[in-house]
């Protein structure tokens, strides 16, 4: 007699597995950071303070969202900081030339998307090249173009209302926090609830198999890189608004911060694994850590060291766990 075997479409729920997820670790770390910060500074633990702190670190968080997709694909984009600089510089330059601010802002978004699109196109057309080397060269080119436009000048004097992006409140909540929340939800749904998201995971696990299964891999890769460029430009808008002026050397080192947050969020550097919620938790974890250390005057250089070590340890951590391997993945 044939034995009946039922293969469930999803694994049965288990409390043990539920609590063994990396995201819980992030939640615990998050509260540890909060505890540490309130120990370090008596002014830290205060609702207004915690709320306003988000304004200081959320600008780069917009890039984290699409970067999760890039890294699940198994790619990387290190040109994002340069894209931020280029979009910001183009916007400021157009505005000083007399272009109305809203038009300049739209053009900045287009410039960012174009930068991302070029990255995607190059990676797809020249498959022999890794995304590392492509975005490494465009990183230099985009930053270089920003220098060609503004040289060593700063540009600013934006209209009054533009500062609302970085400094404004809507109903007592920072505007940037609201915008980030909207995009965070949108990206979570995109990755976990749409066919597009499933394709991204499939491609990260096996690009060739996905191609032969009829997934339009090139198109999806270009879309993901274009999104990354677009959101680098969104970051540029908020960052420029917050600073009030811009220079060609803005946002240097943002790529490290962004990649560190994504990796800390549990997204595998070899692709195919990780969840959006992890990266979002990591944004707040790293953000508050930086903010708290800033309150007690930890020098920026030490912060560099801390973020660098955090990145390396976040990558090492899953590899140090005994029995680590692809079997323990959580998609």
């Amino acid at each position, binding site marked *: 007699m044939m034995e009946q075997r039922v293969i469930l479409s999803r694994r049965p729920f288990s409390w043990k597995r539920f609590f063994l997820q990396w995201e819980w670790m992030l939640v615990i770390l998050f509260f540890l950071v909060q505890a540490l910060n309130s120990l370090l500074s008596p002014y830290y633990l205060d609702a207004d303070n915690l709320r306003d702190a988000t304004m200081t670190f959320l600008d780069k968080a917009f890039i984290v969202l699409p970067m999760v997709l890039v890294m699940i694909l198994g790619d990387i984009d290190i040109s994002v900081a340069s894209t931020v600089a280029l979009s910001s510089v183009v916007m400021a330059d157009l505005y000083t030339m007399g272009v109305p601010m809203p038009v300049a802002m739209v053009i900045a978004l287009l410039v960012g998307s174009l930068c991302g699109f070029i990255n995607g196109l190059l990676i797809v057309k020249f498959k022999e090249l*890794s995304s590392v080397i492509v975005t490494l060269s465009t990183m*230099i080119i985009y930053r*270089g173009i920003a*220098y060609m436009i503004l040289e*060593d000048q700063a540009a600013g004097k934006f209209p009054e209302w533009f500062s609302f992006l970085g400094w404004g409140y809507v109903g007592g909540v920072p505007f940037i926090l609201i915008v980030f929340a909207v995009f965070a939800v949108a990206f979570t749904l995109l990755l976990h609830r749409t066919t597009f998201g499933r394709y991204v995971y499939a491609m990260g696990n096996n690009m060739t198999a996905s191609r032969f299964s009829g997934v339009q891999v090139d198109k999806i890769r270009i879309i993901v890189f274009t999104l990354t460029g677009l959101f680098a430009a969104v970051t540029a808008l908020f960052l420029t608004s917050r600073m009030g002026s811009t220079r060609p050397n803005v946002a240097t080192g943002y*790529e490290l911060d962004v990649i560190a947050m994504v990796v800390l969020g549990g997204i595998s550097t070899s692709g195919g694994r990780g969840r959006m919620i992890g990266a979002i938790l990591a944004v707040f974890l790293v953000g508050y850590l930086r903010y708290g250390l800033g309150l007690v005057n930890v020098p920026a250089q*030490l912060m560099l060291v801390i973020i660098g070590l955090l990145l390396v340890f976040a990558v090492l951590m899953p590899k140090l766990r005994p029995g680590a391997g692809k079997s323990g993945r959580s998609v």
Partner: protein
Amino acid sequence: MQLSAKIAKFRELGLLGFIVVLSVFIQLRNPKFLTLENINDLLTNTAILSILAVGMMLVIVTRGIDLSIGATLALSGMIASMTVKAYPSIHPLLAILEGTLVGTVCGALLGVLVARGGVLPIIATLGMMNVYRGLTFMVSDGKWVSAHEMPDSFKGIATGSAFGINTLVLIAILIYVVMFYFVNYTRTGRQIYAVGSNPESAQISGISNARILWLVYTIMGGLAGLSGVLWVSKFASAQGDTAMGYEMSVIAACVLGGVSIAGGSGKISGVILGSILLGILNNALPLIDVSPFWQTAIQGSIILVAVIVNVLVKRGVDRNHLLRRSI
């Protein structure tokens, strides 16, 4: 034979030809270019770049990349110059040794992460780049070591000369000779290429991939440390942001010299020519009145074009092989 296959065969010759054509062009625009003084200047400026490029070649051959060398260079240079500031009577050779040692330790640490930890080179070096850069600021407390605080013997490392050739150039030549022998005629050197062209079969044939990976990052670190001392001695100033972003020039020199980003191939001769070409561009752009603000974009475009040309040449070669097989 197809054109691209021919290019591949005479790649170094082609690069040399390009350098000659470029030099003639620049010479026509500005006659100051091909003077003995400027050539000497150019070679001295290129020496450090080419030393680093040889190390980077080894890393890229193993399919890796090292973004941390600018920071390693700064850290080693800073520690060495702080030592000579505190003990001015120290022999310059000891300072060189110290810097090289610091760099070697930085590189070895990175090597452990990549080889034993299995961390992607781009992630590991991006992280450690910031750690080393932060350490540079911290050991110096944000201060500079400037020219008047360095003893003449230390500054003499870069300004001195033997047989009419600058010491930096001599050191670079010495390193080429040693590395040429190492990668072409020693077992370990050949194993580097084996690991780069096919890690799985290298492992199966008994090569310890982890050992080779660790070795290349350590060598890279050592060369970066040595370059740090030479850099600080040459510019007579050690700062926290020394050589920031210099890793890009080094990678550019490698890809211009035909080192394949996909790993497994790259020649010392190519890397030297690539460095010289980049050195000429850096030296000549100001001479023909190109704004310094354009240099970054030009350099980036050169890297991109070079890697794309490498790919197209490779495709042509592969197609050629296929054609030959079908007959």
